[in-house]
């Protein structure tokens, strides 16, 4: 088969235009996902129709009505039920347009009807078919559109729920074909070759197809490194949206784990499943590490006096409850992993005495915080493991209910603290919640339950950071209602305090993942084995009950309190409530991964906070750097434009030869920038002739004539320079236009 040159041209344009359509299709695909566009198929078909008509290159008086008719049919099929072109039909169409034009004039864009929006969208498709025909077939400029397609897909993929995985592969393929074909034909045109005959064409088409397929397959198959940057969406949202517009928080994505610094809570984090320790216990327990007492409005700090004492013989003395509480003696074994760098003990409620532990370690107890540091030779060190005796507490409901309100003075002063600027609505809300409760326990339960019922959402990604004037709790309770354990536990503590119930904030780990049940260990006891990871870092609430001590509560949605509560049937046999269910730890509702706490690297302690937050700063700085770079590039590209504006003023009056020379030299630079560079062996006249020919004018010759007089005749003054200034300006404008 032999193709004539024009036929070949035709096929080439067909391929190119088809590629253009396919690329455009990629633009339309996300619409269904991202917007409320329905019937996308119809729009795609209409786009194809428009593209096809454009390609036929029929006269406009034929193509316009055809496309318009297509548009009308689609609108009719989608929105109008009256007979096509009947009187009612026209009336409805008229009403639609009239209404929507009013809406547009009123600038209430949201009010536009589906009919009108579809109409506008169809018109847009129509225009795009023209535009792409021009780009692909007439101007043969494909790359820009290809690039834009890639950008659109990546942006859609990143910022919306649209998944662009295959779209990227498809776009890649189409783009390569389009670019290949276009470059091939440009080459043919340039070299004036015709590849007549399919055989010769094949010689070129086959390698190209092979290459494209190969690169696509290779590109798809090779392992790709994970994202170098964390997902920017949560950061951008937390930075911009979460703060209610009052300022951009400096926090970004954080890594989950147990951390020291809680003074600025909020922000998203990513999961980290690095194991911290293995625990052997009879039941799932929460592992306590420390408490904090002082709420700043943004997070937690410890203001209690450090009271660190070395304990001997393993007697920790960190019981959080009085002897009134029923206990059961149990044992537990903790073994830290090599990754662990906590340098503190994790212990369940009721920890009493460390029985066996690695040689040489000492325990330093910070009584007010309930924190046990492990030291080796006086330096804080990570202890490999220990076995401890615990007196597991069980709290009796009625005992709690009857505990009363008489908290000791030191408890009241420390654990009722609240920031002065805590918004009143927090207090009001708390009062509202507990108004029907007549004892402390029920009040606490009511507030705890409030979180599971009132539209709160457990979320680790889309979590706001309080702005400068925001209160962390207030923001969570009234604005975002999205968050993780810190949000829930802090809010509960603050709410309790606001109604006069002493409470504190506890940090530690949840029970972790059960790895083996009923394993018999060396000591002859059988245990359940749990693995606890950074992802299990957690925070919860302890409430003070007079005469009983501190009782843990769990407000975080999806988590359940592993503490034992029971009903004393002997004492209150008339109790009909079957609240025993709470004795047994409910199966973890929350995915273990859903547990968190802001991390920093244990090894680095406080300084780690910096690195963790750098993720956020990086994005901020990257954005700033990008903006600055963009501006610099823009300035550089347009340098002759703004410089000329400046020069124009500067050389407004070319009073002396010196100025004239500078102005003329500048003009040479501008011309050179615009692709009219003077060769060094070109005399000014020869050059001026070229320039005038290019710009279709005579000004450069005249300007050059005057310049020659200055340069080669050593002329210092001329009365014609006013005219010359005008010429100079003309030339600059002409060159830059």
């Amino acid at each position, binding site marked *: 088969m032999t193709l004539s040159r024009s036929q070949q041209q035709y096929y080439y344009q067909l391929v190119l235009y088809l590629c253009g359509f396919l690329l455009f299709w990629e633009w339309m695909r996300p619409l269904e996902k991202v917007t409320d566009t329905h019937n996308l198929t119809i729009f795609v078909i209409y786009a194809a129709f428009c593209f096809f008509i454009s390609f036929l290159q029929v006269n406009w008086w034929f193509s316009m009505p055809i496309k318009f008719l297509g548009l009308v049919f689609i609108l009719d099929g989608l929105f109008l039920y009256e007979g096509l072109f009947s009187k009612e039909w026209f009336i409805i169409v008229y009403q639609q347009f009239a209404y929507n034009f009013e809406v547009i004039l009123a600038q209430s864009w949201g009010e536009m009807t589906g009919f009108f929006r579809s109409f506008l969208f169809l018109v847009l498709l129509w225009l795009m078919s023209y535009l792409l025909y021009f780009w692909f077939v007439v101007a043969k400029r494909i790359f820009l559109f290809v690039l834009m397609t890639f950008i659109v897909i990546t942006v859609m993929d990143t910022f919306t729920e649209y998944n662009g995985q295959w779209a990227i592969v498809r776009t890649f393929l189409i783009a390569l074909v389009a670019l290949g074909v276009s470059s091939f034909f440009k080459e043919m045109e340039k070299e004036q070759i015709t590849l007549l005959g399919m055989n010769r064409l094949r010689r070129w088409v086959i390698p190209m197809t092979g290459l494209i397929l190969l690169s696509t397959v290779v590109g798809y198959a090779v392992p790709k490194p994970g994202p170098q940057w964390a997902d920017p969406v949560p950061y951008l949202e937390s930075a911009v949206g979460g703060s209610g517009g009052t300022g951009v928080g400096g926090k970004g994505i954080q890594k989950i784990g147990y951390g020291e610094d809680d003074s600025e809570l909020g922000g998203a984090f990513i999961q980290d499943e690095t194991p911290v320790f293995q625990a052997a216990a009879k039941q799932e327990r929460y592992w306590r590490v420390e408490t904090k007492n002082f709420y700043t409005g943004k997070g937690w700090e410890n203001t209690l006096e450090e009271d660190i004492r070395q304990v001997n013989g393993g007697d920790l003395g960190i019981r959080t409850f009085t002897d009134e509480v029923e206990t059961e003696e149990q044992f537990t074994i903790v073994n830290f992993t090599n990754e662990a760098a906590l340098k503190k003990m994790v212990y369940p409620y009721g920890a009493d005495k460390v029985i066996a532990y690695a040689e040489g370690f000492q325990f330093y107890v910070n009584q007010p915080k309930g924190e046990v540091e492990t030291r080796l030779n006086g330096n804080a060190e990570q202890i490999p493991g220990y076995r401890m005796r615990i007196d597991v507490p069980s709290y009796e409901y009625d005992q709690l209910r009857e505990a009363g309100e008489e908290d000791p003075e030191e408890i009241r002063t420390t654990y009722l603290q609240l920031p002065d600027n805590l918004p009143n609505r927090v207090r009001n809300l708390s009062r509202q919640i507990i108004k029907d409760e007549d004892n402390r326990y029920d009040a606490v339960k009511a507030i705890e339950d409030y979180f599971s019922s009132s539209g709160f959402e457990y979320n680790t990604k889309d979590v706001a950071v309080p702005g400068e004037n925001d209160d962390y709790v207030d923001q969570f309770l009234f604005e975002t209602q999205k968050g993780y354990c810190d949000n829930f536990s802090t809010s509960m503590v603050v709410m309790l305090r606001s109604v006069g119930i002493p409470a504190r904030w506890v940090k530690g780990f949840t029970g972790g993942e059960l790895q083996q049940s009923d394993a018999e260990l060396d000591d002859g006891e059988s245990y359940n084995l749990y693995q606890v990871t950074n992802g299990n870092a957690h925070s919860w609430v302890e409430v003070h009950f007079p005469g009983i001590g501190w009782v843990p509560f769990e407000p975080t949605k999806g988590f359940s309190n592993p503490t034992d509560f029971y009903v004393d049937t002997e004492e209150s046999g008339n109790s009909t409530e079957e609240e025993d269910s709470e004795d047994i730890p409910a199966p973890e509702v929350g995915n273990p991964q859903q547990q968190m706490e802001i991390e920093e690297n244990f090894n680095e302690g406080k300084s780690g906070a910096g690195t963790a937050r750098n993720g956020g700063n990086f994005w901020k700085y990257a954005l700033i750097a990008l903006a600055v770079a963009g501006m610099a590039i823009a300035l550089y590209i347009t340098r002759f434009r703004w410089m000329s504006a400046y020069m124009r003023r500067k050389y407004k009056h070319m009073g002396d030869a010196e100025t004239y020379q500078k102005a003329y030299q500048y003009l040479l630079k501008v011309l050179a920038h615009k692709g009219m560079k003077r060769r060094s062996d070109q005399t000014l006249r020869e050059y001026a002739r070229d320039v005038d020919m290019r710009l279709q004018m005579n000004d450069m010759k005249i300007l050059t004539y005057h310049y020659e*007089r200055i340069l*080669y005749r050593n002329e210092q003054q001329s009365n014609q320079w006013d005219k010359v200034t005008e010429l100079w300006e003309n030339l600059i404008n002409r060159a830059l236009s």
Partner: protein
Amino acid sequence: MTQQLSLYEPKISEVLKNVNKVMVGKEEVTLLSMVALLAKGHVLLEDVPGVGKTMMVRTIAKSLDCEFKRIQFTPDLLPSDVTGVSIYNPKEMEFQFRPGPILGNVVLADEINRTSPKTQSALLEGMEESSITVEGSPVPLKEPFFVMATQNPIEYEGTYPLPEAQLDRFLLKLNMGYPTVQQEREMLSRTSGDHPLTMVEAVLTRDELIDIQNKVKDVYVDDTIRSYIVELVTATREHEGVYLGVSPRGSIALMKAAKAYAYIQDRDYVIPDDVKYLARFVMPHRIILTSESKFEGFTPEGITDTILENISIPVQRTKHE
């Protein structure tokens, strides 16, 4: 063509028009001949016979109201045939000097390379010194004095080529070239009537010409231009294929020619275009190539072009000036 850029000086323009009435398609050669004439230099025309050399020179001479002389150089020509001899006049009883053809204003020295060096040197002396020596006493030449010598490039048998070192006595070396088909047709139609030369009238008096020659000296040559000339000339000496480059006399010649050319274009200052244009006619015959580069196919013209391409035009005044 550079000439299109500006108008010619009115009087010179008249001369050129006059010549072009007779000559077809010889505008450039005519113009360059005028350059040499105004610069008080001489022209060496290297071309085959019959392309109109004589006709052109005669036309120029006639338009200038100048005395035209022609010397046909032959191997047996004697120096005195050029300079003239003293002949005894029996009536007056004394020797009378019968001036030779060199004592004209415009002298056509045809096929200069066919005569002996002795005779050649008689002419060359006159060109250089503006005077000749006849029987021991100097005889001043007429003013203006303009020699147009021709040499035949294809006949080597029985020729005495001009020593290369002597060639730079000529300001310009030109090639006439064959006319194009159209030009030749036009030429034939012109010769069908009266001899065109008869229609030519003098448009410039001798005194006016001398006056112009003096004015040419006053054309301004800027330092930048002088540097450019020196750069060009120096480049010929430094070129590796060149045995002997353009001499300082060559740079003076280039400057003088540029002045004349500027004047012809009614300009009282020289621009690089003048220099660049004239370098092709001033420099090549002053360049002697090494035998290697001759074998490699270099020509003085080619080297001149290369140099012109490589030396950048001064477009900016340097600071200290």
